[in-house]
């Protein structure tokens, strides 16, 4: 298989699982963290031996809330990562909850090699934070961004949510303004998505919570896009913006259809075989089962699927079109391309296709067209 240069580590613990979240995250299981770190370290080690991996260009420690780990625990994980080998200038991201961004933590993270911090701001307005069940305040979040910067991080991302019930366009733009003022190099703005299995999903289903309509959500999206562009941020993926040179390299690996290894509970891996087929694997989701399995055997794969070269091509195009500079991944689909261009969803430049404005709004229609 193709050599792997990207590693994702999953930390499935949170102090509180917010009602809209459908990630693999668990509250009140924090007591499991030490055993979990042992198991995860073991899994990284085993994978490092068994797979063609390294030197690593990107590492992403995500969750859950990785900032709940002690700096010592982060260091232990990074030790294992170092043993696989890091490429010069590797991007090493850690996701943090604003409540955990203290100068001590920042110092510890930097020392263990983390050089990109992704802060889960989500919102700043009290109503929005209450609705989203965030335990930090707006000023906590801004303070977190400042602390990270002051402590030495020069590559910081803020995660934001728009389309939150009760937050109008003006309120959303104020939030955006404040985050920009705090000085971030990267910004992810996600539409608040109602996932059916979450508590929010249930509240929306039962009519308890009315969600903003499509027009309102799109208005907030495009207003943000315009505002960010004014400040020199490049809109490089549907929900992501960065100053030049600060696009998230780890996520680009997935969008450009390059392989990565995922370790930890519920983590997904993607491998590319030399025959152009793709293998996807995923780990056991539950932390306790994961710990048991990974500590015993060094791996915790729960399932996998292999996509034929043809289907892999379609999947690559489905993901690739999310990159707004365009992608060559849709090369093999002339019929679909023509149809989508005629429908005004795609623009074509030689081998490259790019979503139009309308194409962004209907990106799933575009992506689905390439699935065979």
């Amino acid at each position, binding site marked *: 298989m193709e050599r792997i240069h990207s590693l994702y580590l999953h930390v499935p613990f949170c102090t509180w699982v917010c009602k809209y979240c459908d990630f693999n995250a668990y509250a009140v299981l924090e007591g499991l963290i030490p055993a979990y770190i042992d198991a995860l370290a073991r899994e990284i080690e085993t994978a490092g031996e068994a797979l063609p991996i390294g030197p690593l260009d990107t590492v992403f420690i995500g969750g859950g809330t990785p900032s709940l780990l002690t700096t010592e625990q982060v260091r232990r994980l990074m030790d294992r990562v170092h043993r696989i080998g890091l490429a010069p200038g590797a991007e090493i991201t850690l996701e943090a909850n604003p409540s955990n961004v203290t100068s001590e933590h920042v110092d510890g993270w930097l020392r263990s090699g983390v050089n990109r911090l992704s802060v889960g701001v989500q919102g700043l307005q009290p109503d929005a934070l209450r609705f989203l069940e965030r335990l930090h305040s707006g000023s906590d979040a801004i303070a977190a961004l400042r602390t990270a910067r002051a402590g030495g991080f020069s590559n910081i991302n803020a995660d934001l949510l728009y389309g939150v019930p009760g937050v109008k366009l003006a309120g959303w733009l104020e939030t955006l303004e404040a985050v920009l003022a705090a000085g971030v190099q990267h910004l992810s703005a996600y539409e608040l998505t109602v996932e059916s299995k979450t508590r929010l999903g249930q509240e929306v289903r039962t009519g308890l919570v009315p969600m903003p309509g499509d027009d309102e959500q*799109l208005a907030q999206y495009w207003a943000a896009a315009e505002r960010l562009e004014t400040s020199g941020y490049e809109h490089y993926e*549907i929900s992501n913006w960065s100053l030049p040179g600060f696009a998230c390299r780890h*996520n680009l690996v997935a969008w450009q259809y390059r392989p990565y290894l995922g370790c930890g509970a*519920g983590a997904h891996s993607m491998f590319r075989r030399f025959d152009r087929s793709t293998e996807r694997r995923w780990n056991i989701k539950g932390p306790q089962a994961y710990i048991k399995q990974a500590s015993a055997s060094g791996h915790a794969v729960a399932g996998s699927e292999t996509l034929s070269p043809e289907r892999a091509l379609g999947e690559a195009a489905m993901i690739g079109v999310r990159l707004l500079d365009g992608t060559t991944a849709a090369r093999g689909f002339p019929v679909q391309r023509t149809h989508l261009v005629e429908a005004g969803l795609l623009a074509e430049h030689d081998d490259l296709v790019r979503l139009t404005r309308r194409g962004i709004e209907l*990106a*799933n229609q575009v992506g689905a067209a390439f699935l065979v």
Partner: protein
Amino acid sequence: MSTPTRLTRAISVIAHVDHGKTTLSDRLLEFTGTVAPRDMVEQVLDQLDLERERGITIKAQAVRMLYKADDGQTYQINLIDTPGHVDFSYEVSRALAACDGAILVVDASQGIEAQTLANVHQALEHNLKIVPVVNKIDLPQADPELVREEIEKVIGLPAESVIFASARQGIGTKEILEAVVREVPPPTGDPAAPLRALIFDAKFDAYRGVVTYVRVLEGTLRKGVRAQMMQTGKSFEVDEVGIFRPERTPVDDLSAGEVGYLIANIRNVRDSRVGDTVTDAARPASAPLPGYRHVTPMVFAGLFPTDTEQYQQLKEALEKLQLNDAALVYEPETSAALGFGFRCGFLGLLHMEIVQERLEREFNLTLLGTAPTVEYRVRLRNGEEVPVDNPDHLPSPSEIESISEPIVLATIVVPSVYVGNMMQLSQERRGQYLNTVYEPGDRVVLTYRMPLAEIIHDYYDQLKSRSKGYASLDYELVGFEEANLVKLDVLVGGSPVDALSMIVDRTKAQQQGRRLAEKLKTLIPRQLFEVPIQAAIGGKIVARETVPAMRKDVTAKCYGGDVTRKRKLLEKQKEGKKRLKRVGNVEIPQEAFMAVLSLD
């Protein structure tokens, strides 16, 4: 194995749909040891998967049981299980013609319903001795006494003769069998006379060809004779005769009064028509048995493969299905909107549903069915008369002198509180009121003359919903009548969709057009662009609605761990789209083609 004629009985079980006919048959089979308890599955006689799943009987079945009665004698009881639905009433009538008696099953909680009456009338026409049974007496809402009284007053059978039973619990089974051997007369035919055997069903067996179900009324049917079908004139060498126990069991002969089957290398059920008389070509009977009727379809609809490449498969599937279903007719049809398909004729809506479901299930096809319509008779200005079973084929108004439509006599049985609702509904549906009869048990029998077209358009569902499920319906075709009809066209995205055309009453056409457009708006999913829907009469637009363009369909987060889930989601949506038919640029779901059926 041979039983003297005086100990032979031939009976059928008749009932309104769902009153427990098939379950009772199961009990009889069990009680007489015809089916060993370990082989007992529910609905033994229903052989199609679809029959078991839906709990209905589509094909008639026959079985021979041996019953040792209290008088010490062992009787041979031939039981014919019949379909209960009005679509198959001709099959029922032929099955009854093959019997000497009938067990009438009435649900203790529902009482007498429309098909109970229709079946009783048929049974009486055939001079059958009726053994009345009140079934489901174990249900909490059962009122057996009231139903017994109803049977006496409505049908005229003495209350003392009514047997209380619960087929589910096996109560009353023995009493029913005793009544059968006591009450139902033995057959009277002469085994030495020239052969006359009535065909009451036929099914296709992939290995043996057509298996013809017969009751010998006179003479004896032997293996090796040349069987002649008296209506079609065709003759076949009989390879095998046998009885059902319940599986096919060959015997040497079937003599007068006996029920069984014959196999004669017949390749198509059309050559073995229900109602036809089998005789011996070497010594033919002088006249066929009475009552033969050529089965004619009552409703017509187009069936199209959603994937145009499945046309050939659909053709082959129809050919195979037709081998087993003499009532199904079809011919190729081309629709500008839907491409190549077949115009099919059915006995009724249930028959249509069953055929479509069997085609999809047994032949792995994905089909699109257009709204069913009746066959109109159109008199042209030039004096010619043409049948029209497809609204799109209606000649232009300038050529038409008049249009006639099929009329039925509809019998509705309903509790008296709903009479007003039933009358209103029937009036709305161009019904012509004929008669009201009040029956005991607070039951009313209404009769109407109605266009069949109105009945197939949602009438039955409305009947049920406006009577809280209590009304029941039976109908029979009585003829054709001239009517003031006009063609309503539908344009989707600016192009006419021939498969959505309908023929409607002129006075209601504009209103129907508006309702149809409104309804289609809710059924056609949003597309990438705005889709106008228009209804037109003779080129004049009478209604317009617009399906707005799809506004937003984008996943906010798609990272490494989300890809599989997202791909599967999109694949699933795509799979769902296969059930849509692309007409021009617009994807139209199956339900849209049925929209014309429920415009109220």
